[in-house]
């Protein structure tokens, strides 16, 4: 009961329970062998060798565990060890004695035992006792003074290891999440491919339409140019004819003015001028 109520410490490591029956065969083989050898040595001092051979032949393949092994994950180890008083005696001992002897029971037992050992000289006080006392006092002083600091330092080392591992795990999680997001984004992007092809088709359609319109316009322009040319030619011809005729008429008229007519016209002009000047003088 002493060992059983000590709070589920230090459960044996999982490997020997779970997956590897071969290793446990080996372990119990050796254990059993040692047990058998011990027993043989105790009872038959002469025939050890023969017993060794016989027993190792007979007991090679028997499993230690009879029932099915439980594969449940282990509960986590406790943070602190079991409570102890004076660094040596577990609290469960005091609780064990409390119903019968109360609070002072274990102390009385301890004092009685100590005095018994001293008085009956089961424990002999000699120079080693003094040495032990000195060493123990120094040790206990050292542990009490610096124990917590050393513990904190060791805990910090451990914490750092765990923190790096945790950082790695968190980075991995973040990386995976971003990767998933990227993939989803790429899928979304890919959905927009219809835009591209619509744009291409639009371009083609616009090009065709523009070319068609250009052709129509060219046709119109060409026809108009030709008609306008005809019209312009006609106008030009008409113009030229008119000019030529006017010129010809003028030339002929000038030619037809004889010197006689010229003299007569000059005399008439002079008479007219005199008359005009008379009328002008009279008005003044």
């Amino acid at each position, binding site marked *: 009961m002493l060992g059983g109520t000590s709070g589920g410490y230090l459960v044996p490591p999982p490997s020997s329970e779970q997956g590897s029956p071969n290793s446990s065969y080996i372990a119990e083989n050796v254990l059993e062998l040692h047990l058998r050898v011990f027993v043989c040595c105790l009872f038959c001092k002469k025939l050890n060798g023969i017993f060794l051979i016989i027993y190792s032949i007979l007991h090679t393949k028997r499993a230690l565990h009879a029932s099915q092994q439980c594969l449940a994950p282990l509960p986590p180890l406790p943070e602190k060890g079991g409570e102890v008083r004076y660094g040596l005696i577990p609290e469960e001992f005091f609780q064990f004695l409390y119903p019968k002897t109360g609070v002072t029971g274990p102390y009385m037992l301890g004092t009685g035992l100590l005095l018994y050992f001293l008085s009956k000289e089961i424990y002999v006080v000699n120079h080693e006792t003094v040495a032990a006392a000195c060493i123990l006092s120094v040790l206990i002083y050292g542990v009490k003074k610096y124990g917590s600091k050393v513990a904190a330092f060791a805990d910090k080392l451990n914490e750092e290891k765990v923190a790096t591992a945790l950082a790695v795990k968190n980075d991995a999680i973040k990386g995976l999440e971003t990767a*998933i997001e990227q993939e989803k984004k790429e899928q979304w*992007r890919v959905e927009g491919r219809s835009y591209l092809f619509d744009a291409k088709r639009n371009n083609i359609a616009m090009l065709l339409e523009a070319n068609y319109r250009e052709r129509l316009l060219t046709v119109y322009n060409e026809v108009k140019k030709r008609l306008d040319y005809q019209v312009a030619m*006609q106008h030009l011809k008409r113009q030229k004819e008119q000019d030529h005729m006017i010129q010809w008429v003028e030339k002929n008229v000038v030619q037809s003015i004889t010197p006689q007519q010229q003299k007569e016209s000059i005399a008439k002009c002079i008479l007219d001028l005199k008359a005009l000047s008379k009328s002008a003088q009279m008005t003044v």
Partner: protein
Amino acid sequence: MAGRRAAIKAIDWAAFSERVPSNQRAMFNALKTRSDALSARLASLPEKPPTIDWAYYKATVAKAGMVDEFQKKFSALKVPEPVDTQTAKVDAQEQEATKSTAEYVQASKARIAQYEQELQKLRSMIPFEQMTLEDLHEAFPETKLDKEKYPYWPHKPIADL
């Protein structure tokens, strides 16, 4: 005039631009400038050319029958529409793109499933404080020391220490 008006769909350039990844931005810009140039050219050309005033020309031009001949020939003229050779190619491209897209999306989904699986594994891991070394090797197989390949301590190449 039957096949002439191939429908010019309105494209949402803003939404299109959002979906373009950064390494294809230059191509997108080129496409957009080309498209804009084409639409500008189309807008500058009138839909129908102006009609010719045949009455005026008939009255003005002296040559007998020339205007009538022109008119007859002009109205009989059919301007050929440009033949569309490329739309089929674009459609073929689109089919191919759809196919490769489907493949890509499938591969992408497989990748996502894989990532989700790993994420699940990582999230459901026991905390490091409660792990033994064996649990650690199970969760992160790369931490396991290969004792067959490197039988002597430290069981990994010195450069990896």
